[in-house]
């Protein structure tokens, strides 16, 4: 994996979209969107409902192929036809409605569909070892036993499992769709800590969120979509809470944002 070490903190963004457009029938969902996500950073993707956030991450995650524009991954142009191809590059998407099986335990969920085997039998010990390794790398200390059933876990713990599952596969880009949407205060805090930690470990994290406090708490960059156009992608340190809200609601704020 020559790219992996080199890309940590590298100047080249891991994910670069240039002039991406996407149309569903008569509806133009994305117009000429530029977007970047760097390794080691949390890039927050914000925008009002229907601004095109989900479509954009679906393009990143290989669910949709852009109609026009350029998609570069680690500097090389790519064309992703399916989520599987994206996963092969190391791009994992954690969906808003968690795709976990409640009747299975944490290890079983983390390896679902990609089980380790010894001959025909499952290699439970290897999977449990690996699951513990990944969870410790994320400094998760709120799970209890990795053999607990998901039905016994709280919402925050489930979110943690879903995220841990995404980074189990030496992923380089993790897309999180509203990870704290249905969580309480303490649980949100825990999940945000993990989001931050993922970036600190050198992954490129793309975070969709409606909550400005969360966005400012963890992100390095903020990309604001307005009616399918990229209003601005700015460093979080350079903007205020109010500016971002203006970018979301009107597409511009002072000299930032879309031209009138």
């Amino acid at each position, binding site marked *: 994996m020559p790219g992996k070490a080199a890309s940590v903190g590298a100047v080249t963004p891991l994910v670069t979209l240039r002039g991406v457009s996407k149309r569903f029938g008569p509806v133009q969902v994305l117009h000429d969107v530029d977007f970047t996500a760097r390794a080691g950073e949390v890039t927050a993707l914000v925008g009002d409902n229907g601004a095109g956030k989900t479509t954009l991450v679906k393009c990143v995650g290989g669910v949709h192929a852009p109609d026009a524009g350029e998609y570069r991954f680690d500097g090389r142009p790519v064309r992703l036809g399916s989520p599987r191809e994206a996963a092969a590059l190391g791009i994992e998407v954690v969906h808003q409605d968690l795709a976990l099986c409640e009747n299975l335990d944490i290890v079983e969920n983390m390896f679902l*569909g990609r089980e380790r085997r010894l001959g025909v*039998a499952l290699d439970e010990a290897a999977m449990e070892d690996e699951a*513990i390794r990944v969870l410790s790398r994320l400094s998760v200390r709120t799970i209890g036993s990795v053999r607990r059933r998901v039905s016994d876990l709280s919402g925050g713990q489930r979110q943690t499992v879903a995220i841990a599952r995404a980074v189990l596969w030496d992923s380089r880009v993790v897309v999180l769709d509203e990870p704290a949407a249905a969580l309480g205060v303490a649980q949100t805090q825990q999940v945000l800590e993990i989001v931050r930690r993922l970036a600190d470990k050198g992954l490129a994290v793309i975070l969709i969120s409606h909550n400005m406090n969360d966005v400012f708490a963890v992100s*390095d960059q903020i990309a604001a979509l307005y009616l399918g156009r990229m209003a601005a992608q700015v460093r979080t340190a350079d903007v*205020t809470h109010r500016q971002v809200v203006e970018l979301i609601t009107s597409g511009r704020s002072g000299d930032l944002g879309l031209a009138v």
Partner: protein
Amino acid sequence: MGDSSMSTDDIPKGKQTAVKLAETDFAADKREHDVGSAVADYWTRVRSGDLGAIPAILGLVGLVVLFTALRPDTFLSKGNIANLFIQALPYTILALGLVFVLLLGEIDLSAGVASGVCGAVMAKLITDSGQPWYVAVLAAVVTGVVIGSVIGWLVAWVRIPSFVVTLALFLGLQGVTLKLIGEGGTVPVRDDVIVAIANKNMPIWLGWTLAVVTALGYGVSQFLRWYRQHSRGLHAKPVQLIAARVAVVAVVLLLGTFLLSRDRAPSPLITLAGVPWGVPLVAVLLIIATFVLGRTSYGRHVYAVGGNAEAARRAGINVNRIRMSVFVIGSTLAAISGIVLASRLNSVAPGSGGGNTLLLGVGAAVIGGTSLFGGRGRARDAILGGLVIAVIDNGLGLLGTKAYANYLITGGVLLLAASIDAIASRRRSATGR
């Protein structure tokens, strides 16, 4: 990578307060359970609606006590105990196949009559065409595979609810059996090998050898597993509990062998003793099914699809293939059940597999602890539930209960088991946080 991770203050931030990063190390629960904590965990699980084998074992004990009290001379007689096991064989095999179907939250109402069709195919080939038994058995099993494939295809790809598909087949397949056998007729089964399954016994020494080997094999596999987990510091049950579990299984196996090895012939002039050949057949099927469900990725995927089909699909599992496969397994085991039933009755009649056969099969799986709502259940449920059903069937027979009462009671037992399942499942979702 740990060194390069930024401390909280370095993270570029806007005006909001930064998230505090707790640097505490991961403290996964790697502690060895002691007996106390394991029992406490188990009790918590039971209280939150995860009943496991408890209803079946309580039911079994209760029913045995009840029938022993009502028919003290006959119920626990040597001959009747052997009868019980033989009666349980077909239901148990049918239920084993239904466990796979129920794990997906689907139902196969045609499993009973499918066993009738497969039994009829076998009987016709042996009796009318003079085929050797293995050809007939193979044909019966292939018939089961075909029936299961048709159901699976209609459910998974045409997307008709399994309830409707198998209700249609329940009617249609009875027609097939009737056509094969002819109205009013029965086809006798006289092939030695087939008849032996339910009517002949293993030599006493072989019964004991198999029981001891099975008990040892179970013990060794359990302890090896514990050792692997323990030595790698993984989550393991306390070794005392494993020892207790192995001891219970060994005692049950040896006690069963002992009971069946006594001479149960009604006349002192002949000897009738030994474990019926059908018992090791069920044991082998149970071991295979347990391995497939618990230790292979196929089994894992069956549970996943039963628990959350959408999650399974997103994890890259071919949900339709899994859905189809459980019906194939269900109908194939129904075919084997049909063969065993034919062996027990020495014949196949047009009504074979009809009536309450299916009800008893589903009842066995559900009483054993397999949920009708999918995602929960084990292969051994079929055995436990099958024994409960056989005890009811046998006991009612000894009491000389009228046919109408028999139907009422069997239906009532199934409803009771389903109610326990439904209430437990509601409790699970209530405590599921």
